[in-house]
């Protein structure tokens, strides 16, 4: 159990900067997810924490101790790799116990702890098998077993689920979450999958080009993205982002999209200027009642495209010429070309500066 504190951390490969001066505090016991597109430096950051890469600059502190100069084995962290990295020439039991044996733990204690870890993960009957005799999900369990058996101070996960099929991925995701609730150890988890990030994290750290773009609780990032990048990365289907103008009228501030005026419930700071309006599908719903609710406004829509998901249907229409997606009840809409009124919840809309693409 330990907190992890990263200060001014950089990693260069020649002239390429993979990580560019990151500051990050991870409290003890927190589940932190590093997420971002490929090449954003999230894996490099994780590997630097593990000690598999040397930091070019800055410090890494685990449990109050600066570990920059410690070898990976002395940092008391455990890591689960994307390709499982099981030792093919050892049985499952030996794989799980490998780290303990390498640390010269007595044989009987190794056996007891391996059994305990196997029991936790439900792989007791696999202990005598070799990795090649296991399915992908079983291999991943063994890899996790190898990590938890050591009771490390910090767990590091490097895209552990990306080699699994969709169903197993869901299953293992809940298992990892349950594991964290059970052992409450600090976990740092790298993924490019925003659903994994949203579902697992106490805190999401969204990275871009070697820097932290935004960090906070999943809902914070989801509801108040600091930039169009964050807005577009989190959420599926994606947020619709369209260019408009922030304007002031007698009735209050509005966003002008072509001829359409969308009134804003509260005035953002600053003058009239070009902005980007971001609307998530769930901010657009079928109109109900004679007038839109407080903070919403009503628009006419001709549905162009319908994507049913069972419980909901995503309907695409054009708002001032830009495609926008609305999340409707499954039976609200039946065929393309249908006309209906849509309420836009402007209170939850995101507004970005058109130049900097940062939130206003």
């Amino acid at each position, binding site marked *: 159990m330990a907190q992890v504190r990263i200060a001014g951390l950089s990693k260069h490969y020649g002239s390429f900067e993979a990580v560019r001066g990151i500051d990050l505090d991870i409290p003890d016991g927190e589940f932190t997810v590093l997420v971002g597109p490929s090449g954003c430096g999230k894996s490099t950051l994780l590997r630097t924490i593990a*000690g598999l890469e040397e930091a070019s600059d800055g410090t890494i502190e685990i449990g109050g101790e600066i570990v920059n100069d410690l070898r990976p084995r002395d940092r008391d962290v455990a890591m689960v790799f994307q390709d499982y990295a099981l030792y093919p020439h050892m049985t499952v039991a030996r794989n799980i116990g490998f780290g303990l044996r390498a640390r010269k733990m007595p044989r009987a204690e190794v056996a007891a702890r391996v059994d305990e870890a196997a029991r936790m993960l439900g792989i007791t009957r696999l202990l005598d098998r070799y*990795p*090649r005799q296991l399915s992908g999900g079983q291999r991943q369990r063994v890899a996790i077993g190898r990590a938890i058996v050591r009771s490390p101070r910090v767990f590091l996960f490097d895209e552990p689920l990306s080699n699994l099929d969709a169903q197993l991925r869901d299953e293992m995701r809940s298992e990892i979450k349950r594991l964290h609730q059970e052992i409450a150890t600090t976990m740092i988890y790298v993924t490019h999958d925003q659903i994994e990030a949203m579902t697992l994290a106490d805190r999401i750290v969204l990275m871009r080009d070697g820097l932290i773009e935004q960090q906070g609780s999943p809902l914070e990032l989801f509801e108040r993205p600091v930039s169009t990048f964050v807005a577009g990365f989190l959420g599926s289907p994606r947020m619709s982002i369209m260019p408009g103008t922030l304007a002031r009228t007698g009735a209050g501030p509005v966003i002008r999209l072509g001829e359409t005026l969308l009134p804003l419930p509260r005035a953002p700071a600053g003058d009239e200027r070009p902005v980007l309006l971001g609307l998530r599908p769930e901010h657009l719903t079928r109109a109900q009642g004679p007038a839109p609710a407080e903070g919403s406004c009503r628009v006419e829509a001709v549905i162009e495209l319908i994507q049913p998901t069972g419980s909901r249907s995503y309907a695409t229409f054009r708002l001032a010429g830009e495609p926008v997606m609305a999340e409707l009840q499954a039976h609200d809409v039946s065929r393309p070309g249908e006309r209906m009124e849509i309420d836009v919840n402007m209170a939850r809309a995101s507004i970005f500066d058109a130049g900097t693409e940062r939130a206003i």
Partner: protein
Amino acid sequence: MAAPARRRRRRAPPFARILLLGFFLVFVFVPLYWMFNTSIKPSDDYLAIPPVWFPDAPTLVHYQAALFTYRGLEGLINSLIISLSATVLSALLGTLMAYSLARFNTGGQHLSFWVLSQRFLPPIGIVLPVFLIYRNLGLYDTHLGMIFAYTVFTLPVSVWMMFAYFRQMPRSMEEAALVDGCTRWQAFLRVAVPLAAPGIVAAAVFAFIACWTEFFFALILTSQNAFTLPTVFRAFIGFQGAQYGEAAALAMVSLVPSIALGVLAQRHLVRGLTLGAVRG
């Protein structure tokens, strides 16, 4: 659908297959048999027409002559000492060098190729300087000198084979070992080396066979003391005629270690030579 079709195709031409395999077996084994036969024939039967396929009075005199009169046994022992030592050294050093090249990118992108390129130079280009250096250092006609020469001689190919093997092994297993509690050395010895065993064995077998059959350096760098088996053969073909029986007898003897090694290493060899094709 696919399975029955394949079975039918496999079963289809038994006659042609047997003929082809039979021809190949004859092609391989007749010379071997001829050699074995010659090694136990009395001298008069060597070149008799029609050939004597089954000698009436098999004899071991050629073996006796080859091993003792012509000092074949000494050559055999020298060859075993030199080849085995050079093979072990080449495998040891080669594994370390290859691992270093593959994992730490030692010497940048060109050193690995430079290692291999050492084999591009024809041996004759350096044999005289080596001879002079050896004579001055007292390595001429010594086991040590020959072991050293053969180690250097086989290293490039050993390194290159193992380099290819290490390079296709995922790094993550060793990284897992490092995080798990191993030092670099432990990760190398407990994870990388066991996994690279097929590659190491394949490289060692190649090195051994290269040393075992090497003639040119042995001819120049040895005389009465450290002479190896191949050099003994010179004596059998003289101006008075060829000693077919003795040559055949010694050839039979010299085949034994290679065959034994091949049989022992067979399981590893196949995996080692197919490299990354069969991933666990």
